[in-house]
């Protein structure tokens, strides 16, 4: 094992939060991309040796964590109970903040069609979202974004790692059935295809 790899192991072992490749590179006087390669090799070696821990790339850096299969044992040891699961409503609001940040409470409420104050408070209290800016408009509404804790809790390196929202846009069959359901008879003077295009325009610009 190279001294550089050893140094990375030593540093990440004493870090209280994920250590960025940039910082490691600076401390070791090597390039960040070399750091990435070494970390990848280390993670691979732990996997190969079937260790009880792993080196992961999360929240902008590298960190040691227990391997998921060992959860039953670690659970018994860790006293702090995990937080209760988020409700479906809180998860939806979280998804909206994650993809549309920075976003105001009112915008979240508009998308979900219900008041979002309570769920936004819950998410902030859990540390998953935080006020990141103020709207420039007259109301100076608080704008929310996701936090580092959010990345850690989801095992993400950055929000860019979230699957693209386009993956979740309902398929044509759902659109069709929505269209049909809300279609006020066949309006002779209006072309249905035209309406369809308007829909996708609206959807696109609002996503």
């Amino acid at each position, binding site marked *: 094992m190279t001294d550089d790899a050893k140094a990375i192991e030593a540093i990440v072992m004493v870090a209280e939060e994920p250590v960025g490749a940039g910082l490691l590179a600076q401390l070791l006087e090597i390039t960040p991309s070399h750091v990435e390669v070494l970390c990848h090799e280390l993670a691979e070696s732990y996997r190969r040796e079937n260790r009880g821990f792993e080196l992961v790339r999360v929240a902008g850096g590298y960190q040691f964590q227990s391997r998921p299969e060992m959860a039953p044992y670690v659970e018994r040891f860790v006293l702090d109970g995990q937080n209760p699961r988020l409700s479906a409503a809180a998860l939806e609001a979280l998804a909206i903040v994650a993809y549309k940040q920075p976003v105001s409470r009112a*915008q979240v409420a508009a998308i979900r*069609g219900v008041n979002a104050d309570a769920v936004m408070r819950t998410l902030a209290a859990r540390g998953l979202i935080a006020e990141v800016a103020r709207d420039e408009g007259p109301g100076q509404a608080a704008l929310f974004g996701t936090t580092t804790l959010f990345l850690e809790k989801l095992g993400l390196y950055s929000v860019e790692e979230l699957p693209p929202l386009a993956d979740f846009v309902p398929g044509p069959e759902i659109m069709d059935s*929505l269209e049909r*359901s809300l279609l006020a008879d066949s309006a002779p003077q209006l072309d249905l295809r035209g309406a369809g295009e308007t829909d996708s325009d609206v959807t696109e610009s609002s996503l």
Partner: protein
Amino acid sequence: MPYTVSTPVFEGPFDLLLHLISSDKVELWEVSLADIVDGYVATLAEIGDGLDLETATEFLLIASVLLELKARRLLPGREAVEAEEELALWEERDLLVARLLECKTFKDASRELDRRLDVASRSWPRRVGPGELYSSARPDVMAGVSPQLLAEVMRKVLEPRPVAKVELTHVAPVRVSVAEAVAGLAVSLPARRRVCFSELVERAQERLEVIVCFLALLELYKQGYVDLEQATTFGTLEVIWLGDSANNAGVEALVVEDYEG
């Protein structure tokens, strides 16, 4: 044909509509609106104490759009309808479809977040730190922190938070929460006992705030927390708190929304 809403809890009108449209392949136009409303009201009744005024209100709004669309279809002489009006109606419909699609998109995205949360929750991070061994190497984080600074910080923390303003953005409609207004009244009314409605809303900046405050009062009246007196038509409306000054706990319970579960 009676329509029963079988799923126990809908988070909002979009939820309900999506459910109606996607799971049961119902053509909304074949279901009488009264049936949808009945089903929804039944659902709300099942929720019971967790009744959410916001949800109910928003649902009514959407139902009214549907009603309008549907009424247009039923009324004779549609040819006479101004093209402009017809177009506006289509825009409403398109907007509704767009909102439903957007809502569904995030609903599906939230499932993916949930899955990732679940996967990640089976690992625990190491957060141990360098320990005693390196304590001498650490920069002194308390450099520059004095007891006076700490007191000053504490004073700032204790300062009342900035007053929450009604958020106005061009993207979303103005929303003032009736639940919040009920909570606010439940705090302020017991100390004042008897107060004119005009005093309650003197600082309102929008007509909507006045309306919301009024709706909140009606809610409190319905629940038996306040009495309302008006000597003459269009006369002064007086609000009388009926509970004792400490007894507003029940009201607060009323407005806590049942999201966390």
